[in-house]
């Protein structure tokens, strides 16, 4: 397969790479990615300590999840890609069943049913789909001729559409859009024709009106309206965004100093240790801290794309590309919504926001990236 092409084109370079990466490759660890992830996690824990009101409780909890996450990442990294490809439909199907269960017997918060309780442990089945959808799509498309034909595109859209609609029903517009995105981006990397992309954009634009009137819930509309004019309801819907912008803006270039952010420590900033943690970082570490954080993300994304380009086959390429781009979408949406660029949807800042489930999913995703990065050349054909 493609490995053969690479060997043929650059034999010396390949041999060199093999020697250096020997140990790490046999452990299925991508060293640059691991270093970046650890740096980001450490930075995240420092910010979290401040955001959680100098309480070690949250930091300890998050550290435990990090340990679990890194272990999970190593385990996932050991799974051969072929096995992932084979299991993907089953995981996907299982996830769909759980999503249906959520709608039937799930527990909720703030008017939405998102959680499934299993013996005292609660989790969101939508997390499973966050990984299952791109894996399934990458598997499906990589076995077809690329760029995909209309028929395959249609099937792919069905595969994406079913979980999207189920999650939308919970209702969780944010997550459903993110999952749809993680599937669609696979199509994009697979070479989806530009005319389709253009057509989809036009369709999306024209769907805005019916979406607004028939699909979106009042609270979702409220968020959009709040984005456009947060001052309209200063104490209600606009409070979060006004306070987070105040936190960010008052941080300035150098910030107010660690543990010295008044917006978060005096509780003006809501959700300061979860979705809005970037505001704490921006307040206490200033624009310099924001630059450091963005640099870490840029390096991770760059490394992800590098892994994607170097992947052995289309499956690895598509999957790595999709996972990496999805990470970027999380970062963009979170930083955008907290700073008032985007409406407020419940998207955490990857590896920094407090929250176990999403962290584990993310780390599993990085495990897949590592698996792709360190895949042994298969002697085939």
């Amino acid at each position, binding site marked *: *397969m*493609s490995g053969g*092409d690479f060997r043929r084109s650059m034999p010396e370079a390949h041999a060199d790479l093999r020697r250096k990466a020997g140990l790490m490759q046999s452990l299925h660890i991508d060293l640059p990615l691991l270093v970046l992830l650890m740096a980001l996690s450490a930075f995240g824990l420092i910010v979290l300590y401040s955001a959680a009101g100098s309480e070690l409780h949250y930091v300890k909890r998050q550290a435990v999840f990090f340990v679990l996450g890194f272990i999970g990442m190593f385990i996932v990294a050991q799974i051969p890609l072929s096995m992932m490809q084979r299991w993907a439909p089953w995981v996907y199907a299982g996830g769909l069943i759980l999503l249906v269960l959520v709608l039937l017997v799930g527990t909720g918060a703030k008017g939405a049913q998102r959680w499934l309780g299993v013996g005292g442990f609660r989790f969101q089945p939508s997390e499973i789909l966050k990984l299952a959808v791109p894996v399934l799509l990458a598997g499906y498309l990589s076995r*077809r*001729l*690329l*760029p995909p*034909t209309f028929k395959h595109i249609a099937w792919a859209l069905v595969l994406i559409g079913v979980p999207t609609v189920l999650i939308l029903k919970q209702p969780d517009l944010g997550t459903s859009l993110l999952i749809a995105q993680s599937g669609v*981006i696979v199509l*994009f*990397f*697979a*070479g989806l024709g530009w005319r389709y992309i253009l057509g989809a954009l036009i369709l999306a634009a024209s769907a805005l009106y019916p979406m607004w009137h028939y699909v979106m819930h009042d609270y979702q509309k409220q968020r959009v309206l709040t984005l456009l004019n947060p001052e309209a309801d*200063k*104490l209600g819907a606009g409070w979060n965004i006004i*306070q987070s*912008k*105040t*936190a*960010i*803006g*008052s*941080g*300035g*270039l150098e910030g107010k100093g660690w543990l010295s952010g*008044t*917006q978060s420590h*005096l*509780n*003006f900033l809501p959700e300061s240790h979860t979705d809005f943690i970037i505001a704490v970082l*921006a307040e206490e570490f*200033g*624009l310099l801290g*924001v*630059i450091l954080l*963005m640099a870490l*993300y*840029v390096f991770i*994304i760059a490394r992800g*794309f590098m892994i*994607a*380009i170097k992947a052995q*086959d*289309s499956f690895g*390429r*598509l999957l790595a*590309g999709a996972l990496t*781009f999805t990470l*970027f979408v999380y*970062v*963009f949406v979170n*930083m*955008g919504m907290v*700073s*008032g*660029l985007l409406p407020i949807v419940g998207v955490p800042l990857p590896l920094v926001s407090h929250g176990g489930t999403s962290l584990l999913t993310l780390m599993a995703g990085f495990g897949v990236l590592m698996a792709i990065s360190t895949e042994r050349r298969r002697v085939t054909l």
Partner: protein
Amino acid sequence: MSDHLQIKDHHREARIFARRVGVAGVLVVGLLAVVFLRYYRLQIVEHEDYVTRSDRNRVQVQAIPPTRGLIYDRRGRLLADNRPSYTLSIVREQTQDLEQTLEQVQTLVDVDAEDLATFRERLKQRRRPYEAIPLRYRLSEDEIARLAVNEYQLDGVEVSAELVRHYPLGALFAHSIGYVGRINERELAAFDEEAYARYSGTHTIGKLGLEKYYESDLLGQVGSQHVEINARGRILRVLDYQPPEAGKNLTLFLDAQLQQVAHEALADKRGSVVAIEVATGGVVAMVSTPAFDPNLFVTGISFADYKALNESRDLPLFNRTLQGQYPPGSTLKPMLGLAGLFYKVVDANYSVRDPGFYQLENDERFYRDWKKGGHGARVALHTAIEQSCDVYFYDLSFRMGIDRMHEFGGHFGLGQTTGIDVPHERSGNWPSKAWKRKARGLPWFPGDSLNVGLGQGAVLATPLQLAVMTSTLADKGVRRKPRLVRRLGDVEYEPEILDTQAIDAADWLIIDQAMQSVVHGLRGTAQGIRRGGLSYRIAGKTGTAQVVGMAQDEEYDASKVEERLRDHALFVAFAPAEAPKLAVAVIVENGEHGSSAAAPIARKVFDAYLLDTPTAADSAWLGNGGQP
């Protein structure tokens, strides 16, 4: 199906993918640049703005209201106090569901429709986040207890203590001290920047009486503290503290005992009593009845209560002492007699014949004497005052002329505000030729002077003006500014002389003796008040003022006239007659006869002031803070 038959072109797929990653990379870099620019704008370009916002969030300047000055009577009895009162407020941001909370609160405490309406109004106004909005004032002990028990299910409901003005003697001082009330929107709109700051911690303002006149002194200076607060409005630490300065205390000339005596003497009549200390101008009694309980107004009077007060025919809100303008009637006679002597129009021996009426040349009108048949053939000044002979004063007025009457009366304060330290005083009317030209567009007729001489027609005076006139008479022409406040903070009041009319001692004695005869003479009009013995001498003059004009030949018959159209009864007096200490003016609306309705009230006031014999019941009443 067909693609399974085709062979995958791995190079092409890899190329396509690389291109797509390139596109994605551009997208990533582009969008992250947008995010970065957003943060750059917030943190660098608009940084100062947000620092201000953040500080405004964090640091709050809290006003610390000063304690309002207390008010004491001349003997140190507390008349206006500040008492802790418990207020129920709601912090909207802390309630789960405002409507539900309101409903729940209403099951625990009485909240009437008006409280609720005011609350909702306040809710709509501009306010700080987490500001508590008052719903009910003056919670009872029971209500506080019920709220405390149910506190756990009343998120956002607060019970706070604040100092609220209290008037222990209630209605007794309603028309002198007045009251404070909640600052209303009109008053708020009239505040300048400085006033706005001064009242930042204070919810009430003097609305009436001394509370209004001395508002600025009583208020004190507001203190402040910069505090760091959290989003729930809780104070975390005090950054600096500027203590408030309490308002100045007032000590009055008014005497609660005398007020009480005058108030009770007026009983259920409509009328007023003003008593002035001759030597200082200090007002020791100032009562207008009916009165009202000023405590009702402090935290906002209910609509029903206000309506009752406002629409009462007896006008309890009307301060008769300063605003009631009455024809003074015969109470002017001693002053006019003195004027006659001063201008040498008459002397002690000059007499007129009184057939019961008086006529001017070329005027068909009969000017009647109150006494049918007249006072006899030879009526001199002494008798004219003692028996209130109208014909003598028709003659005197005619011969003196309005110009001299106007001038002399002006020295006694008629037709001008007295300058007392209570707002909303009226000036009455003391006619002159100029006044009539201006007001009526008519020249002065000789007959007009006759009406003025009888204190009728266009002549109007407030009870306070009559008291000032009487005090001026008692002090031989020295007119002082009447004054309620004796000591403001630490500063003692210096009596202020407004006017001095040189009076010949002999002239004065004639008037003084004539006025004494009014009370002590055998035929004096007010001799009735000597009943039961009188250990000092009172110099007085009765008066009767017509409420409705009588036709020429009509007889005034009390039994035929509706109660409210009956004559007003007046009495002015000073005592002791030889060395006057106190001057008193009494008006009883529709009381008919100054001698029987008004004079006895004055006697009671003199007794209380001069003999200083508080009854056991009175002492107990006052000692009890006005609680019966």
